[in-house]
Each structure stands twice: as C-alpha cells, then as structure tokens.
C-alpha cells in the first residue's frame, strides 16, 4: 500500500489520495476497525469505521469521554492504535506522519503555548518544527496567520498574558501557518465569548469554501448544526452513526410544543386527542407530533379552556437525533 504511492509523481496536495482504498471515493479521513485499548484495559475507541468526505465540514460529536480526542490523537499519529487502520489524506497513519502532517493543521484539546514567548514567537517555534516550512517566508506567514485570527495587535505580548480566548485564537493561528488540505479542530470555540464563537464559525466556513476539509469535534450540538455539512456521533467509544447533517436530523421526528400555565389540563387534552409521548416540563408540554391536522389539537385545547401561550412543532435537531439513536441524554459518559 505504501510502495506504489511512493512512486506517484505528485503525492502532495492530492485530496483524492485515497486511490488505493477500496471504493476509491474521495475521503480525507478513513478508518477501518480503529480500536484503542489503554493499558489497564479501558477501551477508549472501539472498532471505528469513520469516513470523512473531501471538502466537507465534518462535525465529530459526542459527550465528553466518548473517545473523540483519542480518535483524533490516533489520526494525528500521537497514539498508536491497538488494532485497525487509519488513513489520512489517503496515506496510512501514523506511518506516513511526515508526509501527511505538513498538510494538516490541528488544534487538539485546546491550545498549548510557551508562556514566556510572545504570541509571534510561539508561531515561529511551531513553524520551525515543520521541516517542510520555508524559513524565508516564515515572518510573512506568521503575520498573516496572526492577522487572520485577529491577534495582529497582540502579537508582541507574552503568551502568558493572553486570555483563554486569545490563546484559543493563537492555537488556531498555528493551524493556519500553511495552506492546509485538512484542518482538525478539537473544540475550537472553547473559552470564547459569543462574538469570538461567531468569528470562529465564519472562519471555518471561509476555510471550507476555499476547499479545505474541516474535521470539527464538539460537544455542542448547535455548533455542529450551524457549521457542519456532515457529522458522526460517538458514544462510549463507538461510532453510532455518520452521514450528512440533513440526513441525520431527518431521521428523527420533531416535537409538538405547547407553552401554557395549565400543563396538567393540556396533557389530558393531548392524550385525549391521541398523541403519544406526552411530557410535562415546567410551563411546556411536549409530545410526538400528531398524525392529523395541527389546528384541531389547538382548537381542542382552547375549547377545554387551556390558556395557550405558544403552540408549535419544533424541527428535529441533532440532539433529538442523538437521543433517538442512543436512547439517552447528552451527558458525560461514565
């Protein structure tokens, strides 16, 4: 598998480097039976078959402790898999690290910086670590990366004086030092204020529109919904599902939501009308959407003297999809 590709005239920058893969599809990340069992027997990742299409913004979703970071570390060659294979940009990891990683920008488990160095010197150091980075263009590339994340003004400050949000931006800047084929961003909006989150999301969209594949891990469902085209859902070390975000959300039905102070009466009327799964939560009563006409339900509620303050069918979200898939809430795995 390694030999034939070594004779390819231009192995760099070819997104469809998955040519050697069965199926020959344009996948940027492809794992088969990827498994990691830590010493001590804990199974962190269990038989992962992950496929990230080229050009997608792939949301890697799962509660804390579900094996997302272990997977990312295996993809980046930091952790050796116990079994299974991982191919990134069509080349096997961790064996092809030196050829693959210069084309990959990564933010893994938050930024890590040298506090005694300025923001600029931190980037210079990470760039110097990349043997393919040209030192003649280093200053320009570092300045451009700082500018892109909005840190140009704070570039000369020592990194220990940075706020968490600034550190996060500097970590992102390190991932953007070179043009990349793949960006791996692990919880990129952690520690950012709402304005910073919006900026990062628009940056991710901008990068994706340039053709960069973005692999974005998050435990925030709405974040994934807002920026991702595709998603994979992890729980307890297993990949439960993957596909386009639209397909995933379509797999789950929406919910009828009635906002009212008369919750008990509402629940009674709804059950009378034959809708299932009625749940009372504070001043909201939710249920499965009715099979019949919506307005009939509303009329029945009003006739029964229920003070209806809100009445709507909420679109199924990824969270509903997640709950439907796992039959449990989105909590930290034990």
């Amino acid at each position, binding site marked *: 598998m390694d030999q034939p590709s*070594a004779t390819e005239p231009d*192995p760099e920058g070819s997104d469809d480097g998955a040519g050697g893969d069965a199926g020959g599809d344009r996948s940027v990340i492809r794992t088969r039976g990827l498994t990691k069992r830590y010493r001590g027997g804990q199974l962190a990742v269990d038989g992962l078959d992950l496929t990230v299409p080229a050009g997608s913004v792939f949301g890697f979703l799962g509660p804390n402790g579900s094996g997302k970071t272990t997977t990312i*570390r295996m993809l*980046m*060659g*930091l*952790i*050796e898999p116990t079994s299974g294979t991982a191919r990134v940009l069509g080349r096997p990891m961790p064996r092809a*690290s*030196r*050829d693959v*990683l*210069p084309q*990959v920008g*990564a933010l*893994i*488990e*938050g*930024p*890590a*910086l*040298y*506090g*005694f*160095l300025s923001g600029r010197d931190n980037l*210079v*150091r*990470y*760039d*110097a*670590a*990349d*043997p*393919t*980075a*040209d*030192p003649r263009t280093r200053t320009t590339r570092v300045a451009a990366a700082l500018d892109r994340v909005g840190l140009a003004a704070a570039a000369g400050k020592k990194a220990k004086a940075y706020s968490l949000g600034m550190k996060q931006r500097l*970590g992102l800047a*390190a991932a953007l030092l070179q043009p990349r084929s793949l960006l791996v961003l692990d919880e990129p909006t952690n520690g950012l204020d709402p304005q910073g989150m919006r900026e990062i999301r628009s940056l991710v969209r901008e990068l994706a529109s340039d053709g960069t594949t973005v692999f974005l891990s998050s435990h925030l469902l709405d974040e994934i919904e807002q920026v991702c085209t595709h998603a994979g859902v992890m729980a307890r070390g297993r990949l439960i599902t993957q596909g386009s975000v639209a397909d995933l959300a379509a797999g789950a039905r929406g919910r009828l939501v009635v906002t009212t102070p008369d919750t008990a009466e509402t629940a009674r009327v709804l059950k009378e009308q034959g809708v299932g799964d009625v749940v009372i939560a504070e001043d909201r009563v939710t249920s499965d959407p009715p099979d019949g006409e919506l307005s009939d339900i509303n009329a029945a509620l009003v006739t029964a003297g229920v003070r209806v303050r809100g009445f709507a069918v909420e679109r199924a979200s990824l969270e509903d999809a997640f709950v439907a898939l796992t039959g449990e809430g989105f909590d930290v795995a034990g």
Partner: protein
Amino acid sequence: MSQAEEIAFQGREERRDQPRTARSRRTTFRATLFRNELHTTFRRWRTLALLAVLAAVPILVGIAVKIETSDGSSTGGGGGGGGPAFISQITNNGLFLVFTALAATLPFFLPMSIGVVAGDAIAGEANAGTLRYLLVAPAGRTRLLLTKYATVMTFCLVATLVVALSALTVGAVLFPLGDLTTISGTQITFTEGLGRALLIALVVAASLTGVAALGLFVSTLTNSGIAAMATTVGLLITVQILDQIPQLHALQPYFFSHYWLSFADLMREPVYWDDLVKNLGLQALYAAVFGSAAWARFTAKDITA
C-alpha cells in the same frame, strides 16, 4: 559525541525517514529547529538564573580566598572542597581560580543545572501540552529528541564556559596572573596555562554528557517536568553518595561521576591520560545506553498529554 556529529546524525535520520522530499531544500531547513530550540532555551528566565548561579560560584570563591589571605597568610591546603591542590595557588596566580571553580562546581552545581535542563526537555513540553503540537507540526520524534539532546549538550558547554570565564575574570581582577606551576612542579607559560584551562573546560563539559543523556531518558518517562528534574537530580546525588561508600568499590568505576575530577590530570606534566580516557569512555557509554533508551521510549510512546 560531539555536537557536529549529532547534527550530522540528525540529518541522516531525516533523509532516511523522508526519502520523497526535495533534498536540496531540506539541507537548508535542517538546523532550523535546533536554532529555534537554542533560542527558546536560552531565553528562559530559568536557564539564565541557572547560569547566573554558576557565574556567582567563582566570584564567591575568589572573594573568600582574597579575604582569607588579606593578612598575608596562605590558605590552608584543601579548604572549601576546592579540589586537588588548586585553591592554595590562587593567590599566586588568578588562573588557578578557573581550575578551582570548575572543581567546586563539577560535583554538584554543574550537573544539577544540566539535570534541570535535560529533565525538563521532553517532560516539560509534555506538561505544557506543547509536545503534541511540535509532533503534529510535524517535528518528527527522532528529530525532536536529537534536537533536545544537542541543545542540552550545548547547555553543558555554555554552563562550563560561564564558570570558566567568570573565574578567569574574577581571578584577573583579584589576583596576579603569570606563568604557572603544574601539579608535577614544572613551569608553563601563561598562554599555555590558558590553553590548558580551555581544554579542561571542554573535558568538564564532556563529563556532563552522561548526566545529560540520563536526564533526557528520565524526561521521556513522565509528563511532569518537575518530576523528571527531581528524579535526575536525585539520581545524581544518590550516585555521588554511593561513590563514597568503600564497600561498593567494585561498582564505582561504572558511576558516571567516578572519574569526573580526573580533569586535574591535564595539569600534570606530562599529562596523565588513563583516567581522562576512562572518564570520556564512560560518558560515551552513558550517552549511548541512555540515548538509545530515550529513543526507544520516546518513539514508541503514546502522547496523551
């Protein structure tokens, strides 16, 4: 192993691991990480503090000798752990302060500072989380380890030269300079004495390569920089103590510190090479054994920090 050899070795590694990348460009980029590593190390406040402490030792010794002998008497033989027969000569010739200062710092101050820098080399990066970003850059595990070792060796040399130069300056200010008498009793010129002092400084720096390799190995075992530093310095002290226990004389020739003070033999006429060669051979053995162990550990390690 000299630094030039280190870098050459590093180059070979890169070529072997990356046969497909343009070679001509690679040669210009090869030393980039090493230069950045030196820059980063010597800009740390901690590194500068260690060097400042090392520079202060000759100043203290010089002033102490000056005060002790201000009434015209000569210093008693062997005062202050100053090593073989050097301290009593300082008042006659400031150059002897170089030998005295090196003899005073070699048992503890120098190796301790090497232990701090070497122990922190990998573990400190792991502790700060910067290790994962260096490896994803991708620095390459072998390349990063060799860069770290080359940097620690450079620090050995710089630390030793700081002691020597500080001692030479203090010696020149407080005491007369001139021709000097070797341990064997022969006279050599001041210039030749300076040459011997430089040679001694280089031998002292080389004596520290074993501790450097040991510290680097310990550094690959843990994700805590403090733990690695403490372990290395702890091992250093333990070995020094064991080296004093007569019952262990069969083991003592294998302790990295056993032949350290043999550098004094360079002040004999003719130079007595036996222990010097044993010392350098022992350091090379430590560098090979613990260097390989560090490589085996670091290249196979799961980076979870």
